[in-house]
């Protein structure tokens, strides 16, 4: 039982506790820490890129290293920072919002995390073994298939392993939301964050297999002599582009949708109003998810698909702006007439609205295929996607962390420091990326190592770099806030924001079984309904009884470790057959752990009713 071990509180015991945990709240911590770590690495890479581009003819880093930097920055930020940070939020919040004691597959949940982490580590080991991947985060063939060294092999194996983890995590949330809702929590009473997590999980389920297939083909082309992408042997590189973007475009919605949900919850809480147009919000989320699969070729307008294909994809792309617009208006109407409290979470949310709208607008510009011939592969595109990803995803993560920090760690992040971190980041963000649209229109291509004197690009790039430093300062203040809060701030109450949804009806941090009694949900914003009727908490749906909990297990860690080892084997067997030993050892570990899991019954344990009464609300 994890509880007994945790009581000793030695460092070793704590590490062991986290390695074996199947508690979604602890897995959320793991995702947050590792996602945060990769976010800092990706940020460092971004700073190096910006320093290199600070002035014309700069030679801060070499051209080859620059290619590795941009590749690793993009790959790290999307797969190893944004995704896990979103999973951290989903793990911390979704089971609480639907009134569940746990997720549907706690074991798989832990497996998903460890696969992600080992995949990410594998990818980053490449820095120390003779060169990181350098074919861009999109890894287009033939640039990738002909790239020298093992960099791209690391990309393939690392993403394959961490992608499997993401897929597993997505399936877990899908089943959790379908099957584990508390009595009365119908679909149309789910909080928006739960809804968007649900749709995101569907997108993960359907989009990631395309990446898996693409990576497998790439793996065989690079490591086992096949020629799927080799034109001279009858292959076709365009297949990679399609597979990548069939995954890639849904992926950008996988990133933004959960944060749309978080913003909805935050804006409604801090406006003290029910979310405006709840059903329209749900509808727009579903529609975005659906349309997200119809538009991928807008990344390939200049490939030469022909005017018919280009037109179809241009129109479907522009259509996505409609549900997105519905959402923007609903947020505005939620605030309209509300009594708004400018907390740090709300500040990030309000800043998100205009920032993201600019990104959506440049998106529609890019969507007109004829015009895209001008924009494509210039800094205009870089401006566009940073407006949506930083202005949407990153702002959203900051907002959501401020909002749910008390639920995750039992303390409210210091508000003053929260505001102090916001301003440099916000100003820096617009300084960095707004000017990039114009650099792009002036002809500055993306992914070029440097530019010349006298191309009138120097001033814009300088401004951009200054902005990047401001963002770094904002991030550092946020980190300082975490430390400061941990040391100085008092314990938070169960409901510090006067919240509306179920997670605020239980203590911060919740006991490991979440709800002593499963709550009865009587409408949208269940906690708010009870408050309005003068009750203290949510009515329970069942008498106090024994609670069934899953056992901790080290197997997910071992399975992932096995694939990590096998990954090296696959990468280096090209050089020497002896490396197949690593494949055998790694796969042996993984398959052995799977066998153990299958053969050994693990039925979990019960917390007895008497113990629940005795211990009260705490742990």
């Amino acid at each position, binding site marked *: 039982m994890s509880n007994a071990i945790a009581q000793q509180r030695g460092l070793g015991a704590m590490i062991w506790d986290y390695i074996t945990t199947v508690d979604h709240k602890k897995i959320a911590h793991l995702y947050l820490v590792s996602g945060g770590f990769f976010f800092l690495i990706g940020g460092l890479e971004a700073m190096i890129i910006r320093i290199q581009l600070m002035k014309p003819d700069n030679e801060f880093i070499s051209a080859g290293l620059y290619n590795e930097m941009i590749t690793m920055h993009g790959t790290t930020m999307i797969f190893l920072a944004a995704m896990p940070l979103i999973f951290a939020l989903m793990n911390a919040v979704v089971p609480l919002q639907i009134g569940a004691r746990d997720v549907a597959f706690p074991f798989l949940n832990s497996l998903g995390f460890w696969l992600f982490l080992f995949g990410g580590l594998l990818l980053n080991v490449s820095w120390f073994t003779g060169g990181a991947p350098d074919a861009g985060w999109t890894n287009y063939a033939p640039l990738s298939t002909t790239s020298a060294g093992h960099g791209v092999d690391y990309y393939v194996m690392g993403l394959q392993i961490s992608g499997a983890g993401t897929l597993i995590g997505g399936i877990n949330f*899908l089943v959790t939301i*379908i099957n584990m809702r508390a009595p009365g929590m119908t679909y149309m009473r789910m909080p928006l964050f739960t809804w968007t997590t649900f749709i995101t999980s*569907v997108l993960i*389920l*359907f989009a990631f297999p*395309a990446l898996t297939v693409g990576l497998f083909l790439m793996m065989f082309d690079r490591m086992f002599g096949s020629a799927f992408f080799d034109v001279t042997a009858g292959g*076709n590189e*365009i*297949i990679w582009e*399609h597979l990548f973007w*069939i995954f890639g475009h849904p992926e950008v919605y996988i990133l933004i949708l959960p944060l749309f949900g978080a913003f909805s919850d935050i804006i409604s809480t801090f406006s003290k109003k029910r979310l405006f147009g709840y059903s329209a919000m749900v509808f727009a989320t579903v529609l975005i998810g659906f349309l997200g*699969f*119809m538009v991928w*070729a807008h990344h390939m307008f200049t490939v030469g*698909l*022909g005017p018919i*294909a280009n037109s179809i994809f241009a129109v479907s792309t522009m259509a996505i702006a409609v549900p997105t617009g519905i959402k923007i208006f609903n947020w505005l109407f939620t605030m309209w007439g509300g009594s708004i409290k400018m907390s740090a979470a709300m500040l990030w949310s309000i800043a998100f609205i205009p920032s993201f709208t600019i990104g959506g607008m440049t998106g529609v510009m890019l969507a007109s295929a004829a015009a895209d011939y001008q924009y494509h592969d210039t800094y205009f595109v870089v401006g566009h996607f940073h407006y949506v990803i930083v202005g949407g995803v990153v702002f959203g993560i900051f907002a959501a962390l401020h909002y749910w920090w008390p639920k995750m760690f039992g303390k409210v992040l210091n508000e003053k420091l929260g505001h102090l971190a916001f301003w440099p980041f916000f100003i820096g963000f617009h300084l960095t990326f707004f000017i990039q649209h114009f650099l792009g229109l002036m002809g500055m291509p993306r992914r070029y190592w440097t530019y010349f004197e006298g191309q009138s690009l120097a001033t814009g790039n300088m401004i951009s770099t200054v902005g990047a430093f401001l963002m770094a300062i904002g991030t550092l203040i946020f980190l300082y806030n975490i430390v400061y809060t941990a040391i100085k701030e008092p314990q938070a109450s169960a409901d510090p924001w006067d919240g509306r949804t179920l997670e605020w009806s239980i203590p911060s941090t919740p006991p490991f079984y979440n709800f002593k009694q499963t709550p009865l949900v009587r409408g949208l914003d269940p906690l708010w309904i009870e408050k309005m009727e003068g009750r203290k908490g949510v009515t329970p749906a069942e008498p106090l009884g024994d609670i069934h909990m899953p056992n901790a297990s080290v197997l997910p860690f071992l399975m992932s470790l096995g694939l990590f080892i096998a990954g090296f084997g696959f990468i280096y067997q090209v050089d020497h057959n002896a490396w197949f030993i690593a494949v055998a050892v790694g796969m042996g570990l993984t398959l052995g752990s799977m066998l153990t899991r299958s053969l050994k019954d693990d039925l979990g344990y019960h917390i007895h009713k008497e113990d629940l009464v005795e211990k009260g609300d705490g742990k």
Partner: protein
Amino acid sequence: MTDHTDSTSKHKIDIHKKEHKEEMIHQVISFTLMILFTFIAFGMVILEISSYFVKPVLILLAVVQVVFQLYYFMHMKNKGHTMPAMMMFSGIAVAILTIITFTTIIWW
């Protein structure tokens, strides 16, 4: 236990048996059909019938078999399977979209 509860539970068991029997018949029928389809498939290839005819028919037979498999053997015809059905059909839609793109844009 009283007589009364006994008789109702017996009644329930009867209904259950009847359902079970129906289910069994369905399964046997679909199983025979599937075997028949397989023979037809092999037969067509062995008899070297024109491939313009064989290919579409083979695909059609395969699809029907998958449907049998899902609905009769994996119980998708029973209640409570709307969500899995929806997920599967969305997945199939994505797959078809991919195939259409590949055939029309890449290989045409």
